């Protein structure tokens, strides 16, 4: 049984935010008397993550996902509550803790812009106390996994976004951390680059049993990597559990498009008591509940003359979109 590697209890975070009214009057007022207010961006959240788990944090922009990741990796100080990551209080940023984690932000880079990535890799290797031979071995291994080679010797500024992201990953993983915090790692990447990155993360998780906490607005990242998701709504957790359970709950019916041999068969099917969504000539779309799908399909195939049949999964983005605007999902 895997151990808990992350334990968060009653965690809150507030930021002081200043506001300014528009126009000259607002500017002058702002100059002499700044209005600041404390905004609670994370509200009393608690969760645990087991070693080797891949957990997706879902939420609308500004929901607080990135703030949670930043607190987990020790970048920002919590206002209230406790966090324990791998047995350490993250904000103390103890050397052994830092050697255990990494944070990758899709929109930020740590590679030195004017030098080839290989220089940044060796620099990071020395920061993490790796000797030259070990660093070389890890660079070779990770570059093979990430399928990068010549790019290692080209100045970062001349690399494409995908190549740069791969290099960023390599720089962030050279110390072989066992906890990865990934904040929108596929942001701006093309479809192939996104798929390769996901494949790499799956492989890394499988080979090293690393724990991965991930935020992404691309649902494909979440569905292909995460079995568990934590939905964040206005700083609070609205759902924490299995992704497939959430999808089943939110989408209890499937749509079946049935192409009948003739329009007559379609009319017969329309009048046989199924929940019909629409009918166009010999094509009819019906809605069937997930728990009766096998029996219903058997019935249709046995009793009607069917030419073809398509099961349409509801678009996952649409389902998750519903989660992001709701406060609580009790499943």
């Amino acid at each position, binding site marked *: 049984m895997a151990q808990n590697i992350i334990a968060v209890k009653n965690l809150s975070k507030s*930021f002081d935010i200043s506001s300014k009214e528009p126009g000259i009057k607002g500017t002058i007022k702002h100059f002499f008397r700044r209005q600041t207010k404390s905004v609670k961006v994370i509200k009393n959240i608690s969760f645990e993550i087991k070693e080797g788990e891949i957990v997706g944090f879902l939420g609308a922009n500004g929901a607080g996902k990135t703030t949670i990741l*930043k607190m987990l*990796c*020790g*970048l*920002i*100080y919590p206002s209230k509550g406790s966090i324990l990551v791998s047995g350490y209080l993250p*904000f103390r*940023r103890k*050397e052994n803790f*830092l*050697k255990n*984690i*990494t*944070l990758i*932000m899709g*929109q*930020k*880079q*740590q590679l*030195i812009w*004017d*030098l080839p990535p290989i*220089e*940044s890799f*060796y*620099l*990071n290797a*020395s*920061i*993490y*106390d790796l000797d030259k031979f070990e660093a070389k071995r890890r660079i070779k291994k990770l570059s093979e996994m990430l399928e990068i080679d010549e790019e290692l010797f080209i100045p970062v500024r001349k690399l494409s976004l995908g190549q740069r992201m791969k290099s960023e990953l390599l720089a*962030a993983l050279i110390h072989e951390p066992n906890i990865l915090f990934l904040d929108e790692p596929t942001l701006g990447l093309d479809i192939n680059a996104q798929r390769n990155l996901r494949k790499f993360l799956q492989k890394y998780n499988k080979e090293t049993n690393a724990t991965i906490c991930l935020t992404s607005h691309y649902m494909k990242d979440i569905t292909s990597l995460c079995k568990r998701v934590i939905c964040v709504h206005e700083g609070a957790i609205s759902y924490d559990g299995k992704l497939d359970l959430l999808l089943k709950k939110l989408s209890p019916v499937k749509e079946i498009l049935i192409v009948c041999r003739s329009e007559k068969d379609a009319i017969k099917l329309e009048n046989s008591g199924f929940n019909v969504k629409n009918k166009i000539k010999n094509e009819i779309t019906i809605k069937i509940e997930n728990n009766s799908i096998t029996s219903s399909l058997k019935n249709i195939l046995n009793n009607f003359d069917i030419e073809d049949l398509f099961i349409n999964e509801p678009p996952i983005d649409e389902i998750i979109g519903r989660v992001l605007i709701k406060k609580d999902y009790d499943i």
Partner: protein
Amino acid sequence: MISKLINRKIFTLLKVQYSNMLEYRVEIALWAISGIIPFFMLNIWTNNNLNESINFSDVMLSRYFLCAFLVRQFSVVWVVFSFEEDSLMGKVSPYLIQPLNPFFRYFAQHLAEQITRFPFALIIAFFFFILNPESIWIPNLGILFLSIISTFLSFLIQFLIQSIVACLCFWTEKASSIERLLFIPTLFLSGLLAPVVSFPEYVKSWIYLTPFPYLIDFPANLLSGNKTNISGGLSIQILWIILLFPLFKKIWSEGTKKYTAMGS
């Protein structure tokens, strides 16, 4: 063991930053040239015979301003601007979760820049000697060594002062404007525009209580062979470092608690 590891990290940082600085060699050459303010001051002083009032011969004065130029070249600090930008843009975030204080990066960046700047400073000094052949002198090795140490200590004092100001980014976001306030006394009181000995007595009585005369005036006088209290000057430089370092550590530790990782 610990110092060995830190040395290895710093050495690698230095190597990488030097490679990076070589990418900017033209800019660095221009920065070196832009630091010739002491030569303008020399011109003003000699043309107006101001040196007589402080008992400096023409040769002594020209050597002083050349040394002020050299000391400035190897002690110039801009960490507040780099840190402010990195902090506001969120670039400092990845460095904060690495087992090395980000200021080591800036420190290595400055040292690498100084190494890159070295040949350009020598070329400028060479041209200075061509124009002022009477100023040519060879300091003895001991003095040269102590001057290098003193210049490095001056760099450390300035680096610590600017790092403390840079940490104010955690509270004010625009710490560089505070640094602007320090720029005026640094310019006037450090000896860059005039040897401190030329200041009125009442100014001199308090100016030596500040770190400013130890930034340019003391190392420049030391290198140029002018009369100066070597052990006293070096001790005060070290004292300032001892005072500033814990202050930097405290403000860093408090500041990082305020860090909001904006822009990332």
